[in-house]
Structure formats: C-alpha cells, structure tokens
C-alpha cells in the first residue's frame, strides 16, 4: 500500500505540471485554418513571399472591398516548401477542415496534387471565371480531367535578358538575339565571349531549368498523354540536352553550384545575361549600377524539334479554392480580382513586379510604360504578349520526379557519360518512383 501511494504521488507530481504547462501553451489557435475565416465575409489564404504574392493578395482585398466593404482577407505567410507538405499531411490524414479558403500552388506541382489529392480542391465555376482570357498553356497546368481547379496568377513566361553594353562592345544589338535559333545564339555568344571575355548565360549545375524551357518551347514533355515517362525515347529531349551540352562546352553557359551563385553571376557582372521566367527581373534589378544596360527579348528557337517556337515558361503559380472554402465568396473574389481587374494588375506591377497571366491586363497603359532599367523597353507588355504564344505541354503527375531524373542525367552527360545510357537510367528511376 505504501509503495502504491508512492507511485501515485510520483505520477501526480509528473502529470500535474505537465497538464498545467501544456494547458498554458495551448492558448489561441483557430484563426488560421478552417474554411475558414469564421464568418461569411472573411476568407483565409495561404501564400508565400510578402513582397510578391502576399502584396498582390492585399491589393486584391482592397479592390474587392470597393464593392464589398465588409470583406476581409486573412493571409497566412506559408512558403511553398512548407505549403506542399502541409497539404500532403492534411490530405493523407483527411483533415480537410484545416484547409484555408484559398491557397497558392506552383503550376508545375498542380497535376501531381490534382491527381493524387483531388479532395483538396473545389472546381472553379467557368461561368464565374472566363478562362479564355488566360493563355491556354497556363490554364492547362491547373486543368485535371477537363475540370479547372486554379485561377492563374504569377506569370512564368520566359525571357532572354541580356546586357546591351556587353553586346555593343562585341558589335551586336538585342535585335541580333531576337527571333534566332539556338545555333545562331551559340555562334554569336561565342563571338561575344571571344571579344569581351563575358559568357552570356549561367545556371545551377545539375538543374534542368534550361532543358525544360527548351522542351516547353516546342510543347514537348517528359511524359506522353497517358502520363507514362518518355525520357529514353524522346527526340525533343535528346535535342534539348544536345543544345545544353553545346552551350556548356562552348563556354557561353557557366555552370555554378548554387542558386545564390547563379544570381551572383549576373548581379556582379561576371555573366552578361540570363534566360529564365520573368520573375528573374526582380533579381536582375538588384544590380542598380547596371540600370539602363539591359534588354529583354524572346528565346532562341530549337530548330531540330518539331513545333519549336521562341516562347517558353519557367515557374508560375495559380490560386486554388480549397474543398473547405466558402466557395461562392472565394470564387467571386478571384473572378473579380485576379481574373477581372485591370486596376489590380496595374497596382501590383509597379509595387511588386507581378506580371499578369490575365491577357486583358497586358493592354493597360501601365504595362506599356517604359522600364528605365531595361533602357526604356516596355518589357511587361512584351512578356504578356510572349505569354500568349507559349505552347502548352503535359507536365504529368510526376513532373518533379521526371525533372530530377533528367537533371541527374544531364550531370552525367556533361561529365562524359553516354546520352542513351544516362537517359535510360533516368527513365528507370522515374518508372520506379511511379510504381
């Protein structure tokens, strides 16, 4: 009995402070999740980047409040790297009640989540949102089995941005790099390198961004229409890798080890250009001493690939109405703002550099204003125009697995491995991941 009471005393001594402490810690809660705002005039949203996506949401809230003064938007800052595992955990644990009304999703991850976790999404009413006002290539990301689950926002249209002072030193202008093929690009870039000592491009070693942009410029993909990988029997991919290999071997494309180093190459002026999504402009403009020395144009064309164009994309994101949302309010909010307000896009372009996918926005005077950093070129109007020309491609549900496998293969090929062997391994790896 004595021993028993000792044990009880010990248990109480442990349990009591534990309970009190945890009770004190568990204050708050609510608010952030749960379809979610709490009243019929409030929406919650998960998005990342306060200066870009969150700024756009805050401005959209103001636009919507003009006709809906009681409306409120609660924004929870959630980086995509955190948002994706959060969505996966919620879907796998079937706790959809913790979802916000709206969340932002990377376009390249849309098919994977749409196919694997359809219960996360609400269908976007096509009567409310006119999807014909967005480029088809962009709406294709968020369309699963013919149903659209996303309102496109962030424009990932690719540009070729080059230093005009360096080109001039070598006897070229930006027009010499407009509407050209990759063969012409390599020839001219080699000439620029010989005359100025400056390579034109850089990128992370082991990253497939450039190859994927070349593929999309021809509407090609790593997967067939049924979603099966086509890495080991894909002439477009072979050609894209051949172009990339020639770029690196000729010295006009400098491979670096990290994203930070990549940004550093053009910010510190060791490389005279870059090819990437329009969002890279924010980093380019960080080099204030290079103001007026840049110009942007379309991409080189991969002549050896059927259907090749001068246009492509890298990145971009779309708004999702969750399955836990106040669907009517969330859809109306997105239809009125991101799919219907020139005023919104005119506001966020100068403040955050967020370029519209919504085609009517490109016609506004704000988009046509000259950009002094780019020598007075109205680059944002150009980008919206480019965006409408980007071919649609099939990202497939296993886009990132395919991309990672191709990245590994590119590293091997650059290191001297046989193309067919490396791509065969990549194909096997993706098939294994899909099992």
């Amino acid at each position, binding site marked *: 009995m004595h*021993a028993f009471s*000792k*044990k009880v*005393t*010990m248990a109480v*001594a*442990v349990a009591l*402070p*534990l309970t009190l*402490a*945890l*009770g004190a*810690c*568990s*204050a*708050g*809660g*609510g*608010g*952030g*999740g749960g379809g979610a705002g709490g009243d019929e005039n409030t929406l919650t949203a*998960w998005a*990342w*980047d*306060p*200066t*870009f996506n969150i700024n756009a949401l805050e401005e959209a809230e103001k636009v919507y409040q003009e006709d809906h003064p009681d409306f409120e938007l609660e924004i*929870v*800052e*959630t*980086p*995509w*790297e*955190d948002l994706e*595992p*959060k969505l996966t*955990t*919620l879907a*796998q*644990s*079937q*706790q959809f*009640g*913790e979802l*916000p009304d709206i969340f932002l999703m990377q376009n390249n991850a849309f098919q994977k989540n749409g196919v694997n976790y359809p219960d996360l999404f609400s269908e976007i009413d096509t009567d409310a949102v006119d999807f014909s006002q967005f480029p088809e290539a962009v709406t294709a990301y968020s369309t699963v089995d013919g149903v659209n689950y996303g309102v496109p926002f962030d424009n990932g249209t690719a540009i070729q941005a080059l230093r005009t002072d360096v080109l001039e030193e070598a006897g070229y202008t930006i027009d010499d790099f407009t509407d050209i093929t990759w063969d012409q690009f390599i020839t001219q870039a080699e000439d620029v390198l010989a005359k100025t000592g400056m390579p034109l491009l850089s990128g992370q070693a082991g990253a497939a961004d450039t190859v994927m942009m070349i593929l999309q410029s021809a509407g090609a993909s790593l997967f067939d229409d049924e979603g099966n990988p086509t890495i080991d029997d894909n002439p477009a991919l072979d050609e894209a890798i051949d172009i990339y290999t020639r770029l690196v071997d000729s010295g006009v494309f400098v491979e670096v080890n990290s994203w*930070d180093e990549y*940004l*550093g190459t053009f*910010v*510190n002026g060791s490389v005279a250009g870059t090819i990437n999504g329009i*969002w*890279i402009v*924010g*980093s380019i403009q*960080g*080099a204030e001493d290079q103001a007026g020395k840049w110009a942007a144009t379309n991409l080189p064309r991969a002549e050896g690939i059927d259907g090749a164009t001068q246009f492509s994309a890298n990145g971009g994101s779309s708004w999702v109405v969750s399955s836990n949302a106040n669907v009517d309010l969330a859809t109306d909010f997105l239809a009125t703002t991101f799919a219907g307000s020139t005023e919104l896009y005119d506001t966020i372009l100068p403040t955050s550099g967020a370029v519209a996918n919504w085609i009517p926005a490109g016609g506004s005077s704000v988009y046509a204003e000259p950009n002094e950093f780019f020598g007075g070129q109205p680059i944002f109007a150009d980008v919206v125009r480019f965006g409408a020309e980007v071919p649609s491609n099939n990202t497939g549900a296993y886009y990132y697995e395919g991309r990672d496998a191709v990245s590994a293969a590119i590293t091997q090929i650059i290191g001297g491995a046989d193309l067919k062997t490396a791509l065969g391994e990549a194909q096997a790896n993706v098939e294994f991941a899909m099992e």
Partner: protein
Amino acid sequence: MAVSATNSSRDVLDSRLLPGDQLFENFAKLIGVQDLGSAMWNSFSVAVGTTVLALVVCSIAGYAFEIFHSRGKDFVMAILLLAIMIPFAATMVPLFRLFAEVGLVNSLAAVIIPAISTPFLILLFRQASRSFPYEIIEAARIDGVSEVGIFARIYLPSMRSTMAAAAVITFMTAWNNFLWPKVILVNNAFQTMPMLISNLAAGYVTDYGVLMLAVLLASLPTMVIFLILQRTFAEGITGAIK
C-alpha cells in the same frame, strides 16, 4: 554568417568578406517584413517548455528503467530503442490526425507534446543511473524517505551533469525543430524562428543580408546555452557512456 549580416544583399552575392555598415538597415528590414519578437518568443516558449518537460519525464523514465525491477522492462526498452529508427516523417500523418481530433492543431502545445519523451534521453538517463549506487536508495528507504524524496532530493542532485547534457540536446533540437511546427502551426502568430527564416528565403528576390542576420539571431540562443553548459555537457555525455 556574422559578416554577411552586416552587408547588403548585393555585397553578400559579391562574396564580400569584410564587415559592412548595413547591420542596422538589415535589422530594420527584418523587423519590417517579419514579426521577429513573436517568432523569438514562440521559439523560446517551445524550447524552454520542451526542455523542462522532457527533463522531468525522461529523467523519471530513465530512473525507473534502471532502479525498479520488472520482467517486461527490457522488452519495453527495446521497443523504445526501435522507435529511434522510425523517421518522423513516417509518424507525421497519424500524429497530425491525433492532434486534429483533440483540437490542438495550431497551438504550441502540439509542438511541445511529441518532443517531451524521447528514447534517446531516456537511454541517456538510464545509462547515467547505472553509476548511481543502489545502496544509497536502500539506505534512504530504511530511513523512511519517500520514493519521490529519493528521486528529487538524492538522485536528481547527483545527475546535474546528465541534466545539463540532456538540456543542451533538447533545447537545441526543440529550437531548430522545423518539419513538425510548419505542418501543425497554421497561423502567423505562432511562427517560430526556423519558420521565419524559411519565409525570408521563399521569395523570388531574397535579401541575403537580412537572411544572414535572421540566421545569426536564430543561432545565438543555442550558442549561449551551449557555452554556458559546455563543461557539464561534456561530463554528462561521457558519464552516460561510462
């Protein structure tokens, strides 16, 4: 990291190795875009709460595993040790479901509770208890000291170095905890320092000076705790292995 925190983003990208004059500007930018005070407080609450509770729970468990005799205790210990091998990602979904069902999603308690009982700390205390003379416990019992009294007034004071080692390990782990908090916390008000750093690195344009300052500030508490408890930490670790 310290040098970069005093430089502008452009200087960091230029690999500048000398201290700059942007420290206060970086600090102003940091508190302008993120709620630094709240993140520090949340991290501190989680780390201190986890450390205190983990020391209480694991020291009792380690003591009990070594001092009290039961037929099944070695089997239970083996199960505990096997649990070390299960990656957290594998238990995250059922854990989330559990916390959602008891209404603890989006609370600091949900971050603390899964971390207060760890097999490693229990093993650490059990190993340390092996060098604790059992005769002292028997003598105390004969003298009429209660079991709680033996644990609190005789055992714990002799375990100071083990406590210090366990405190450093737990505090550091709790302070740096990222995966679980980012999944279970869905409100800016509960953001911790690792989550704040993740936010700073998430945008299209990263301010590396501000990012490095945040990383520096996030590293300071663990550095200070380690430096204060360094000597006893070493004694605690070696004592546990003996």
